[in-house]
């Protein structure tokens, strides 16, 4: 059964527990290797760490986000976009505090008559001096199928 619109709207404002996350050298090494980039210098973390570090640091997970969005079938989640802001470069071995929430949900209809939910969450990172480091906003598409007549 498709998640009700009422339920989906109730997710707006859902705050993640929040917490702290440090990027270990080994995981940054593997992450950077996955991108095919040479390893970065001076303890810099690869900028795409701004996808999973905020999610894990805020004490949520992709699995939990799928559960909240009532995702069921393979292919039912799409990635619409990112808006990532860097106030400082990400670095290895710095403890980041991560706080965030689901900021927007909207039920929409595609041109071909299929329902999907636009699902947007945003997480901010702060360093050990409580200075803002980055903000990651992700836009997901949760596909629900055709409108029943």
């Amino acid at each position, binding site marked *: 059964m498709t998640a009700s619109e009422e339920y989906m709207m109730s997710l707006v404002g859902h705050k993640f527990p929040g917490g702290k996350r440090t990027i270990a050298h080994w995981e940054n090494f593997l992450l950077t290797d996955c991108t095919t980039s040479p390893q970065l210098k001076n303890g*810099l973390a690869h*900028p795409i760490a701004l*996808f999973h570090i905020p999610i894990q640091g805020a004490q949520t997970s992709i699995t939990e986000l799928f559960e909240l969005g009532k995702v069921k079938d393979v292919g039912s989640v799409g*990635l619409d976009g990112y808006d990532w802001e860097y106030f400082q470069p990400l670095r290895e071995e710095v403890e980041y505090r991560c706080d965030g929430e689901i900021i927007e949900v909207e039920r929409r209809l595609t041109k071909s008559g299929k329902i999907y939910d636009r699902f947007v969450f945003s997480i901010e990172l702060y360093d050990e001096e409580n200075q803002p480091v980055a903000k990651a906003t992700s836009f997901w598409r949760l596909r629900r199928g055709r409108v029943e007549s």
Partner: protein
Amino acid sequence: MKVEVGTQIPSLEIPSVDAQKMKTMAALLRDPYPIHWDAEGNEKMGIKGKVVNQGPLNLSYLVNMLMQWQGQDCIRRLTVDFTGWVLGGDGLSASGKVIEIHGDADTKLARCEIWLERQGERLLEGEAIIALPVN
């Protein structure tokens, strides 16, 4: 090299997206979505035998292009839309150009259009704000 509006960012070619790296990535992200590692299970999506690259990896090719251009700490903002799947084995090209330069005595920023394409088909596009050296 002087950077000005219209300057083309040196492109980055990805000859073939490595499906093995998607498995490592899935583990790092703790991403349970099987489209990234279960090639046979993707039959229902019409891409049996292929796996779908993770969004952050697609973006990483543009990030790597930008870092090669202006340094590893140059990125201030990335705003992107994903418009198509990248599959294992795909050959890609990451490109960009400067569309605006602004700043003051202490900072100089370039707003750039960036895109990732496969044989002319854009799969990811958006903008990046990049810090430039201040003379």
